[in-house]
């Protein structure tokens, strides 16, 4: 997991200056976080430093973005369906 910067970025460079592992750099249109360098500030700060520094809430956990923007059927509550010997053609929904 890493943090990422959304298109809300206003190019203020606050995150770049605060990042403890130099994972953030300026790209063509906005600042970006290298996911291979970002450590989610683990061992450095309680809260991700970029998120803390960003004036427009553009620094967010990648996972959160993904879940918000690409909600799958599973996110919406669909459970695994299991097919095994003895079942008819259809499968059975896995119970909790």
């Amino acid at each position, binding site marked *: 997991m890493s943090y990422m910067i959304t298109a809300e970025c206003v190019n203020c460079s606050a995150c770049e200056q605060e990042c403890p592992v130099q994972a953030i750099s300026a790209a063509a249109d906005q600042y970006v976080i290298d996911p291979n360098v970002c450590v989610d500030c683990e061992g450095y700060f309680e809260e991700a430093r970029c998120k803390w520094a960003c004036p427009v809430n553009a620094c967010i956990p990648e996972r959160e973005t993904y879940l918000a923007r*690409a909600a*799958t*059927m*599973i*996110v919406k509550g*669909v*459970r*695994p*369906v*299991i*097919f*095994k*010997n003895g*079942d008819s*053609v259809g*499968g059975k929904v*896995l119970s909790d």
Partner: protein
Amino acid sequence: MGNRVVIVGGGWAGSAAAVSARKAGADEVILLERTDSLLGTGLVGGIMRNNGRFTATEEMFQLGGGDLFKVCDDNSRHVNMEFPGHKHASIYDVNKIEAAVKRCLVENGVEIWTFSRTTDVEISNGSITAVFLEGGTRVEGDVFMDTTGTCGAQTLCTDNGNGCVMCVIRCPTYGPRVSLAGLCGIEERDGRKPDGSYGAMSGSCKLSKETIDPKIIEELERTGLAMIPLPKEMVNESKLGSKACAQYALKEYAENVILLDTGHVKLMTPFTPLHELRQLPGMEEVKYVDPYAGTVGNSMRFANISPRDDALQVIGDIDNLFCGGEKAGLLVGHTEAMVTGAIGAHNAVRAMAGKELLKISTKLTVGDAIKNVREEMDQEGGMGKKYTFSGSVYFNRMKDKNLYITDVEAIKKRVAKAGLTGVLEQKVA
């Protein structure tokens, strides 16, 4: 110690792996599939036994790993057909194959889980102990198999292809494929186009039979094949290099629209726009059924190829992970996926039982391909080539080394001589 194999990814590789693991003696085999159905890209495929795939298929029957090849044979719409660059091909019915495979797996004692996308992994002392599904369900296992393929996520297609074309991989609905080896922190490699850019585009598209001239469909259903010459101004040979399947990079495919009867109509010419297809006689009202985007082509693939040895064990800091299908290298096709899936899973069970792993003799084409493709991918430019039993560089190698034979008795003898007859149906655990 338990005896459970967990296979992540229910395409042809994972399905073949599941049957193979059961036959090798695994008490429990769980096959985790992200979507609602098995086979993934196999749902749009259909071509079997063409060129060197015939040899590979018959070798697999002799090795004892022919189960899913038999399902394909049993569900073939056409057998022993010829089309440009290809001999003795069979075409399975893409509308019937998935249910038939599901039945075969369940009858073999495999437990299939659909709507089960693996998103996390639990590792203890260098072994995977469990995977987690999106939604949090924990699935324990003793040995694991990565048959997650090399397509998706959507970003792979938006960054390197024509965007999400709403293909059969169906990332928006089920979430993107997640590499199991990648979750374990194993460094993987990506395939290249001939021009060096990232990935390759699958060119497989399907058209609706109801929208094509009945005379063309009659020929198609009788012979399996229809070839419609393209007007000169529509011929575009530059498209050929961008397609994943190098065996179709022949000028016949640039100069004709080639149609195969897979149940739907499989379009062998790379992604021709709808308005161009409709200029052809008999195709004035044609409609794409797959991918939904039609016109612009198909999914990107060849991301995240795992480093592996010739027993299909993934090389890295994990000791109980095997791979098959495109994860195992640029060995492209349904046949190829079934071969590596079945052999990889057999070895997964051997590893679980503490037995020596099986590297198939290079006197057989399946053994030679597994070794050769691994070696070739390490060569300069090797990641830009595609390897398949059915054409291009590897089929040439098969012919050069006399590995390509179609005499079933001779193949039987060859496998017997290598001492491998029935090896994949012997219980090793």
